[in-house]
Each structure stands twice: as C-alpha cells, then as structure tokens.
C-alpha cells in the first residue's frame, strides 16, 4: 500500500472537514429558507380565508348567498395563483375558481370532521407539474349553513427558487472544498518547511563528517527534541566510529613495530656471513618477538570473543575471596621481588565463570602490583551491598591524571604514549577486565588521587 505524503493527507483532511462543515451549514440554511416560505404562505392563505369568512358571515339569507360567488370572484381578481373551492354540506362543489384542482380528501375530511378544520392544516401537493400549498376550513353562513372552504397558492416560484438556491449552494460548497484543499496544501508545505530543512541538513552528514551537528536554534519547538536526539545519536556514533578507527590504526601500529623489528634483525643477520651461535641468537630474539605478537593477537581474539558474547560466562558459584587468595599465591614471589605486600579483606560470591573472573582479577592485581610504590601494599576488598558484590583493588602510587581515567579501559590505551611495551603488555589488560565484567552484567570504575588508585568492580551477587 502506498503511503500518502503528509501534505496530501493534510490537504485531503482539510477538504473533507471543510465540505462537512459547509454541507451541514447548507442543510440548515435550506431548511430555514423553506420554513420561511411555508410561514409566508400560511400567512397569506390565512389572510384570504379571513376575507372569505367575512363574506360568508355577512350572507344571512338565500339571496345574499346567491350573490356570494360573484363576490368571491371579485375578491380574487388580481390575486394571481390563488385558487378557492367551496363545498356545501352534502360535499358537492358549490364554488370553484379557475386554477387548482383540490385533492378531494382535503375538502371531504373537512366536511366529515369540521372541528379538525377549525384552524386549517397546511398541505402541499403537486398537480400537472405545478406545486400547490393549501388548506381547508369549515365555515358557516350568517344563517347557519355549513360550508367547507379551501384555498390554495401556486408555489411554483418557491420551488424554482429552492432548486436554484440548492444548485448555487452545492457549487459554492464544491468550490470552497477545492479552495480549502489548495490552501491546506500551501499551509502544509509552509508548515513542514522546517522539516525539509532538517532533512536537508541530515542528508549532508556523511561518515566523514560525523562531527557536524544540526543547529537547534531557529527550529520550531516540535522539531527541537528531534534535532537534539539526532545530535546525541550522532555524538555516540562519532565516538564509536572514532574508537573503531583508532582501534584499527592501533592494531596496525602495534603489529608494524614488531614486524619491522623482525625484518631489520633478519636483514642485518643476512647482510654478512655469521657463525652458528650468531644465527641462533637472531632466532631466539625473533622467537621472543613472535611470542609477544602471539600474546597480543591471542588477547585481541579473547577480547573480540567476550565483547561479541561468543564466550558466554558459565553460571557456577565463584568464591571471590578464594580466587583472590589463589592469585596472591601466584603473584607472591613477584610482588615480594617488587617489595609490594598483598592484602585481602572481606568476602563475596558471585555467579559466573571462574576462569574468566580469575583472568579479570589477575589483570587488575598484576596491574596494581606493577604500579605500587615500593614497600606499600595492594589492598583487595570484597563486600556486598544489597544484591551487588563490590570488588575494589587499591594501590598506593602515582596519580593517574583525570583526563586518562575515562579512556583507561580502551584497547591499547596507555597513559604514557611513549612507554615501551616491555613488561607492560600491549595495553589490552584493562580492556579485557572491562569486557569480562560486562559479560557478567557488571560494571567497572576507576578513581585516582595522588596517593591511591582504586579500581572498583560491581557484579551481581549470588542470591543467598
């Protein structure tokens, strides 16, 4: 089904609404004019009947009665279109002027029930193409003889007028409906102009120009939220897009350095004759480089899997205190070497994947040990708040500048861009932590002051 354009819809609605209003008005107008004509006719007929009644009243003898038709004819002179008929007590036509043939019922009913004819009921009928309106009343002469008198008016001119009136009215309504549709079209076009403006602006935004924003000023109130929402969406898109392209360029950069190292090393080795040990040395060195690259690629793959929910956390009960203790055992010697103590407080259990959580905690703890000032301690605290388990890993050390904090969990992000890769991983550790925590329905936050850096994990706790 084709959807009508907004402009067409609104124009159509305008036309329909206008037609309905005008038709109703026209109907009532026609009724009012008709009622007015009826009233006018009744008034005229009543006047004539009064006149005739007067004549009948004054006829109090047979002689005077015989003169009555002549008097009636005289009275009717000049009243074009007026017809009179009189019947006597028996029901025979006693007098009839030229003009209308009265329907028999009109006069007969009046004879049968004179009381019902006291005021006269207005009736309308058609006769050889001409419309009449008339009424009948019963009358008595001066000497008490009963008669029924009917008068009728030729109302053909009214009918003609009404026909013409209705034709003109219908034409006017049709024209008005058309005009309203046209005006509606113009109004809608004009009213929707800002929408077309917005569309035009939106059409101008491409992937290369995601930084562009719609200008909210000058837009009608109804369109402002649309533009604001659209701008917010653009901002999110822009951010993701930027991250994505930064990520791919980071991958390229991270891989380019070790590969060019390997190439240079191999080229130098091949440039002149070497003994066996020297070749061996080159191979060892290459092996180390391969290992680093393999670990980085492995980490990226793991990250991609957790991010895309390919690694679904199992839902076993994981005792975090136990995991942290195992990790402390693992890192103990290394921490001692760095003169860093390890402390654990509290306990908490969460539903989740033991291996994944262990990996996340391992990354946080090794990160904390690496950045702790000598002689200080890494403090891991576990607690439960309502239905959430809180894991906090704190280490005293140099402050991380605030501008780095929100991006700390980005892949390959390093606080110090010049820092070498040796012993510091590829900058994927915290990204992996974040990914694992989010796969468990939790969140991660970091705060840093000049003496303490604190990572906090919030995980859904195990229902007790």
């Amino acid at each position, binding site marked *: 089904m084709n959807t009508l354009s907004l402009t067409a819809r609104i124009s159509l609605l305008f036309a329909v609404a206008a037609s309905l209003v005008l038709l109703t008005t026209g109907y009532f107008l026609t009724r009012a004019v008709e009622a007015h004509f009826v009233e006018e006719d009744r008034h005229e007929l009543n006047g004539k009947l009064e006149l005739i009644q007067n004549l009948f009243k004054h006829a109090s003898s047979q002689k005077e009665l015989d003169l009555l038709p002549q008097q009636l004819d005289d009275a009717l002179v000049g009243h074009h279109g007026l017809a009179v008929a009189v019947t006597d007590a028996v029901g025979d036509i006693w007098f009839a002027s030229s003009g209308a043939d009265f329907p028999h019922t009109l006069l007969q009913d009046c004879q049968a029930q004179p009381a019902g004819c006291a005021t006269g009921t207005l009736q309308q009928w058609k006769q050889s193409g001409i419309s009449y309106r008339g009424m009948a009343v019963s009358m008595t002469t001066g000497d008490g003889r009963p008669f029924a008198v009917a008068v009728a008016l030729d109302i053909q001119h009214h009918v003609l007028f009404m026909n013409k009136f209705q034709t003109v009215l219908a034409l006017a309504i049709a024209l008005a409906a058309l005009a309203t549709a046209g005006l509606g079209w113009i109004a809608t076009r004009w009213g929707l102009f800002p929408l077309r403006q917005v569309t035009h602006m939106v059409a101008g935004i491409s992937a290369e120009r995601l930084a562009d924003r719609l200008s909210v000023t000058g837009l009608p109130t109804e369109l402002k939220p649309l533009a604001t929402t659209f701008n917010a969406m653009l901002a999110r898109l822009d951010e993701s897009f930027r991250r994505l392209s930064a990520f791919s360029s980071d991958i390229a950069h991270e891989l380019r350095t070790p590969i060019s190292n390997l190439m240079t090393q191999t080229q130098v080795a091949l440039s002149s004759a070497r003994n066996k040990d020297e070749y061996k040395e080159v191979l060892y060195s290459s092996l180390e480089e391969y290992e680093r690259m393999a670990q980085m690629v492995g980490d990226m793959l793991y990250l991609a899997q957790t991010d895309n929910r390919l690694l679904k956390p199992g839902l076993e009960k994981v005792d975090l205190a136990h995991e942290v203790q195992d990790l402390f055992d693992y890192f103990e010697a*290394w921490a001692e070497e760095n003169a860093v103590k390890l402390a654990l407080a509290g306990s908490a259990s969460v539903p989740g994947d033991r291996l994944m959580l262990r*990996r996340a905690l391992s990354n946080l703890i090794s990160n904390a040990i690496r950045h702790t000032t000598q002689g200080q301690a890494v403090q891991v605290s576990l607690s439960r708040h309502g239905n959430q388990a809180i894991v906090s890993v704190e280490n005293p050390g140099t402050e991380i500048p605030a501008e780095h904090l929100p991006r700390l969990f980005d892949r390959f992000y390093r606080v110090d861009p010049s820092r070498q890769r040796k012993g510091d991983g590829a900058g994927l550790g915290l990204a992996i932590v974040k990914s694992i925590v989010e796969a468990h329905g939790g969140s991660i936050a970091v705060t840093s002051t000049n003496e303490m850096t604190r990572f906090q994990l919030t995980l859904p706790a195990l229902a007790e």
Partner: protein
Amino acid sequence: MKPFAFAELLARVRSLLRRGQAGLEPAVLKAADLELDLLRRRAMRGGRKIELTAKEFALLELFLRRKGEVLPRSLIASQVWDMNFDSDTNVIDVAVRRLRVKIDEGFASKLIHTVRGMGYVLETLPENAGP
C-alpha cells in the same frame, strides 16, 4: 573445558606410560644428588635439607616428574598455580629463580636450566656446562 597445550597432553600421556611400566608411583623423586620425598614433603640435596614453600615444592615436583623436558612458562603456570592464561608478568621467572637459588646455589652442578625462548628444564648434565 580447560584449555591445554598439545605438549602438555603429550607429556601427560608419556608420564602415564612410564607409570604403567613402573607399576606404581615412586614415593621419592630423584635427580643427581637431589631427592624429593613426596610422602614426607621434604627436599634434600647432597644430604642437606632444603626448606621449600608449598608452591616451590609443587614446582620442584613438576620439574622432577618431567625431568629432561622443557617446560614452557604457560605449562608451569597452569600446573602449579592453575592459571590457564598467559600473563604479561614475569611471575614464573621470579618463582623459578627463587627455587633455583634454594636448590642450585652452592652446588657445582646446576639442575635447573633456562631454555631460551622456550622455558625451563631440569636435567643432570654430564659436565658443569649449561647451555
């Protein structure tokens, strides 16, 4: 399912085969003048008792059971500490270095050797000539 290295599977199968031949597990593991008493949880070298922590004991046990095999760091991490993922730290190097100080220092023939780019191995060399 735990991830495992093919080398580890191979080593386990070999060790099982060896056990099958031996009939039952030995209570004492030996290498040159080093003895590890699994029942008494005690280590001796050259008749001198060596104090080991629980993890050091487990590490030495692994080395002795796989005598002559090169053990990659990831295998050591997974066997001794149950850490089945690569760490970007030198935790294993530190642990092995400490164990080495306890069992090799002061002895002419060294038992634990670094295999560059691959890992560590415990072996008795005919002469005091490490790689």
